[in-house]
């Protein structure tokens, strides 16, 4: 259940002024919501328009005839969209697993293990969060090039795993797990690996779900790094493929195919969003409070 909202005006009988206010507020919100949703609706609507219908004047919000030609054409392009979808799925899923496991291990060391220099090291980790990714872009590209990793999955997955925010987030959650739990397990002879996998990880499931969703959707949308690393069209991710498609059809009558591509890119994001709503809300409210 949601927390009861603040009572600006106590609700007894509804006087006319309050009724007016109520109508006004709802009207504002509905107009706002409609304009928020409109571009997305416009995308879907355009993707189902035939070539002639797209350039009809005045533009029609709902297509007169539903046409699937854009979706059919999408998979007939030079760029293999099915392959791009597969690449994105492989990269995003592998990245997400790594981006949960590796930071969780580090967070465990920073919250439940004691060693000299722990806080100093943690501060150094945090300090790296200040570095914008654009600064490391060029040297990282050079390293990947040097290693001969251009156009490989590992180049798309591994460098983005350097994610200190995830360590920070998981450490915060681990700190709220009582140390006694680990102590008891240690007395019973459990080693740290066992404690980590059997006690900490199960208790962290909600935090991991939140972080998993944030990382999955973040990686799915990532553009700059894959655009630099995946120069061969067989290694394109969806965002890179869509960008290329956009470049080819920007000014032409085939713009509908771009909108079909955008729908294809966004559907998985919306599905995850609907399934994981409560985790997203949780994640956002907790990142906001303690900045």
């Amino acid at each position, binding site marked *: 259940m949601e927390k009861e909202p603040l009572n600006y005006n106590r609700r007894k009988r509804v006087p006319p002024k309050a009724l007016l206010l109520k109508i006004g507020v709802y009207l504002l919100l509905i107009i706002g919501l409609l304009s928020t949703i409109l*571009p997305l609706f416009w995308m879907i609507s355009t993707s189902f328009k035939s070539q002639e219908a797209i350039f009809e004047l005045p533009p029609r919000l709902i297509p007169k005839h539903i046409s699937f030609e854009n979706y059919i054409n999408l998979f007939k392009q030079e760029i293999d969209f099915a392959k791009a979808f597969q690449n994105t799925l492989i990269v995003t899923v592998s990245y997400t697993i790594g981006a949960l496991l590796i930071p969780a291990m580090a967070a465990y060391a920073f919250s439940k293990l004691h060693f000299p220099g722990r806080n100093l090291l943690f501060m150094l980790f945090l300090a790296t969060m200040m570095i914008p990714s654009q600064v490391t872009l060029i040297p990282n590209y050079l390293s990947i090039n040097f290693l001969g990793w251009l156009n490989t999955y590992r180049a798309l997955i591994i460098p983005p795993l350097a994610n200190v925010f995830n360590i920070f987030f998981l450490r915060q959650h681990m700190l709220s797990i009582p140390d006694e739990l680990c102590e008891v397990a240690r007395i019973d002879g459990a080693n740290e690996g066992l404690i980590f996998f059997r006690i900490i990880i199960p208790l962290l499931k909600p935090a991991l779900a939140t972080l998993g969703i944030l990382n999955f959707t973040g990686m799915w949308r990532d553009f700059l790094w894959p655009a630099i690393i995946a120069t061969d069209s067989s290694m394109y991710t969806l965002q890179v493929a869509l960008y290329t498609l956009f470049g080819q059809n920007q000014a032409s009558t085939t713009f509908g195919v771009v909108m079909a591509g955008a729908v294809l890119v966004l559907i998985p994001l919306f599905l995850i969003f609907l399934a994981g709503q409560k985790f997203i809300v949780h994640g956002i409210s907790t990142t906001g409070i303690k900045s």
Partner: protein
Amino acid sequence: MRKKYLTPLLFLLPSLIIIFCFVVFPVFFSLYISLTDFNVRSLVNWGNAKLIGLANYRHLLHDELFLKCIVNTLYFVVLMVPLVLVLSLALALLLNLPLIKLRNFFRMGFFMPYISDGIAISTVWYWVVSKDYGILNHILSWFGIKGPGWLTDVRFAMLAIVGLVVWRSLGYYAMLYLAGLQNIPQQLYEAAEIDGANRWQKIWYVTIPLLAPTTLFISITSMIGGFQLFTEPLTLTNGGGPMDATKTIVLFIYENGFRYFKMGYAAASSYILFAFIFIVTLFQIKLGEQKY
């Protein structure tokens, strides 16, 4: 002694390796590159890059395009951040009113664009603001306004990008504000009521001051995000057009680094971007220490 370090080390090792290789080492490497004439020939053999001191930085300060990129980026930030703050606060206050049923429905609806960030949404926006066939100018025509060519007119192109970014991030920041609102103790409003405060006074004297930490967080995050503006102008205005009116610092880095392969020059400009973001972050730390 060895035992004390071994277990933590094992847990930290993967993170240490990745962060060292892809964050710590590159930061210094980037600084070094920025002091060289690293170019397409050096790509084959790093030894071809010659140290040239601060020449790249000196050139940058006289490069009119780069200066224009800085101005454009600042213009974007100055427009976008206040809009985001005011609109997301207003939205959060509306959603937080006790008379709102379906709060969750509205909140999620407003959040939709945020989840769909990226190239996809830029292509959608391109089509929304298209001069003749876009839905925006069509709606404006109902009110007798003849919409401009948003993306082809030097005066409007950046505004179209501001519009996209504000539209996309509004729901997210409103959610942060909503979380902040839920943390304000009810008694404060009651106390204000006893003192005879009306609805607006309560918002002005209780809500807004108590939301200051959230406001600070949102201004800093959106500012840092604003300095890194890239995907939107890359797509919407084909890399910063018309007449470089929407070219940003990150676009400049991208073009120099990966189109002309002037890596040394690009690295130097990335360090200037770093300086901007660093100043903003320091400001946040200072403000945060002082008040909260």
